[in-house]
């Protein structure tokens, strides 16, 4: 009987049902789309922020203080500690290895360039270099990953070749001697003997100290300085999660004996891609090093990510609110419009419970149908949004499906409950008389 009444109700006024369902579909589609985006946006934006470049710097545990001005280390080549190039592959063997998006070693060598007749800094680095990883694979990385804002005219040096790239300020100063295709002679220290001849393949503009230096492949700098297989510092670009209270405690626990993490806290800290835990993991695979977060980058990134995250959740909340409003308003209107029907039912002896049950069941059925359609529409919408904002579509989250259905059902029920409660007080006679 109940089912038949319900079926009747659906069959009799399909147009009105379509309207209600449409409101549900649109509302739930928006809810799904915003939820999908909000769930994914943290990861996406974190990746986007890697366009700021490296966020970790690894240096030898300092025996001498680096004498570094404007990004150039003026220590003589025989002073201070070096790191081993052969160990770099271990960076891709830490717990969060997939979050290490790139790393670039640097070796600064004070050098003499015959063509300019002056001392200059030689910066040995990688642009694109294949690093053997302990698990037997290769990982291609270099300044292309950690310093994406470097601009080259011409082309980068080939790895290990006798080629070099000139900083733009230096090239401007000696336009003739340091032009593309010219060969220059570079020797270590202040002497003109020995050294190597390098072909200029490009002019690089970095907006930083490298503009006044000569960039060469790392292996060339190592040979010129007489430190094969060594480098001074490595910049690491890692995908991280914004720091929170735990991240801060974890970081302080490394240096401060008074702070002890409980084992669960430690596990949670170690297994979260905080910049401090990734730094800690790097320092365990590269003993004898110090790992600093480049705070300028890391902190700005963390702060903006946290803010945008909160912002999006608020917007999502607003979307959910608007969706709820749309659904509830439609449900309420439906009940109000059908006062006459309610009057007839009650006049024929239906109890309030039966009337309420029929209406609620109808709303819930509609909500589930509308919510299901809305979920798929919303998933498509999220795909489109992800595509247009981040260039890759957001993948639908099936976990949201039951959530959206439940949400739709609950909202529809709440929306019809208030008018239904009022309907319980209807006196059939009054309604049937048409007042």
């Amino acid at each position: 009987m109940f089912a038949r009444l319900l079926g009747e109700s659906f069959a009799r006024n399909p147009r009105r049902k379509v309207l209600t369902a449409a409101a549900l579909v649109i509302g739930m589609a928006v809810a799904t789309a915003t939820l999908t985006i909000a769930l994914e946006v943290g990861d996406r934006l974190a990746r986007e922020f890697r366009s700021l470049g490296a966020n970790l710097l690894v240096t030898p545990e300092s025996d001498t203080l680096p004498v570094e001005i404007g990004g150039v280390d003026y220590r003589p080549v025989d002073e201070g500690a070096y790191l081993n190039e052969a160990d770099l592959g271990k960076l891709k063997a830490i717990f969060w290895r997939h979050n290490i998006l790139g790393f670039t070693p640097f070796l600064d060598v004070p050098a003499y360039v015959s063509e300019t007749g002056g001392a200059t800094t030689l910066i040995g680095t990688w642009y694109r270099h294949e690093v053997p990883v302990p698990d037997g694979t290769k990982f291609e990385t270099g300044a292309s990953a950690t310093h994406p804002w470097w601009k080259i005219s011409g082309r980068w040096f080939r790895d290990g070749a006798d080629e070099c790239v000139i900083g733009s300020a230096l090239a401007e100063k000696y336009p003739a001697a340091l032009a593309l295709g010219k060969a220059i002679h570079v020797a270590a220290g202040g002497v003109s003997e020995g050294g190597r001849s390098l072909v200029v393949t490009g002019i690089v503009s970095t907006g930083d100290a490298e503009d006044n230096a000569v960039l060469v492949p790392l292996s060339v700098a190592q040979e010129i300085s007489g430190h094969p297989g060594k480098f001074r510092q490595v910049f690491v670009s890692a995908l991280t999660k914004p720091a929170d209270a735990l991240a801060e405690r974890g970081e302080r626990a490394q240096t401060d004996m008074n702070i002890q993490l409980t084992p669960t806290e430690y596990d949670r800290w170690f297994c979260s891609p905080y910049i401090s835990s990734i730094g800690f993991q790097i320092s365990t695979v590269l003993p004898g090093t110090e790992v600093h977060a480049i705070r300028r980058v890391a902190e700005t990134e963390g702060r903006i990510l946290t803010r945008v995250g909160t912002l999006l959740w608020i917007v999502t909340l607003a979307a959910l609110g608007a969706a709820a409003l749309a659904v509830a308003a439609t449900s309420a209107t439906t009940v109000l419009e059908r006062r006459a029907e309610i009057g007839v039912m009650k006049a024929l002896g239906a109890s309030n419970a039966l009337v309420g049950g029929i209406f609620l069941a109808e709303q819930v059925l509609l909500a589930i149908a509308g919510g299901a359609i809305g979920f798929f529409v919303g998933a498509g919408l999220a795909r489109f949004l992800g595509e247009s904002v981040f260039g890759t579509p957001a993948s639908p989250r099936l976990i949201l499906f039951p959530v959206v259905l439940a949400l739709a059902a609950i909202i529809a029920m709440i929306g019809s409950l208030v008018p239904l409660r009022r309907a319980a007080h209807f006196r059939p006679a009054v309604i049937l008389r048409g007042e």
Partner: protein
Amino acid sequence: MFWRLVFQLLRGSRGRLAVAIIAIVSGAAVISALLNLDLGVQNKLTQEFRSLGANIVISPVSGAPAQISGAEVPSLMPEKDVVGVLQQLPSAQLAAAAPYLYIVARAQNIPVVVAGTWLDQSQKLDATWKVEGNWIASRDDNSRCLVGRNVARRLHLAVGNALELHYLDRSAHYSVAGIVDAGGTDDNQIFANLRAVQALANLPEQIGLAQVSVAGTAQVVADYAARLAAALPQYQVRPIRQVAEAEGALLGRIRLLIVSMVLLILILTALCVLGTMAALAMERRKDVGLMKSLGGSISRIVGIFLAEVGVLGAAGGLLGTILGAALSYWMGLRVFDTAIAPRWEVFPATIALMIVVTLTGALPLRMLGNVKPAEILRGE
């Protein structure tokens, strides 16, 4: 008469109107809050990017400084040139600026980089520094210095300790005011006020570079850098690209994301209000039948209803906009720790939007022309 009818109608059907008003008010609130938020976001996020610190560096053109073994200094420029130009340019966008003179002095016989600067500016220029101890608030304080974390460890210095710096045959005495945790190369340096370092190096009025922090979008920074470059043709003026390059793209994406979500919500809210209004209009058929049978012309009847709906839209819109402004104020506090001031242009925009939406919702009233009074009154 007209308005009396309108208000009679409004008062007559409170139940249904309640739903419509709730829909309109909350719709307008959501829309105005999001519009406010969206307009405020770009501003706030740009400020966040500025917290990266200095974004323009002025330095002498000359190429790499010669190898400095102990006592030499890289190429220099006169302080008054740079400072003079910085004072001439409009100060509105200038957040902070400071000249720097780097020398390599010896402390406890260890070579260490000493940066002479205006320490009162460093709190703004180096916003990401964490200082244990105190910042130095005056650029004339020549007795105290800040020490980088690594220097402090290497030289076993703590806050309040004395520090003696030697440069050739001159020396200077400082007390350590604070230890800087900069998370960068600044950790390897000692920071003292410019005058003192110039005196120590016997380089009066000379500086090695100047750092400038300009507030505003990447475009504003680039413009400012261009103006500086024009005023200082003999020096190199370079915007720090690392941030500028990424900022535009990042901001664009965040903005696009929020705008698209706001747009979705806007459409949804408008549809919701539209639906409610349409339902309300259809309910009015019976009243129309009555009016028509009493001899009201159809244009007058429709006019009455449109006025009713318009009043609803305007009142609900106004209330909702005020609510929304409060909402966005709260959101600003929640997200950015500073309030988002309501934009005046949001008010008329939201109210107009609500009126348009409610009037559109009343479109089914057109069908009222076809209403036959007799049928309606008979109850069909």
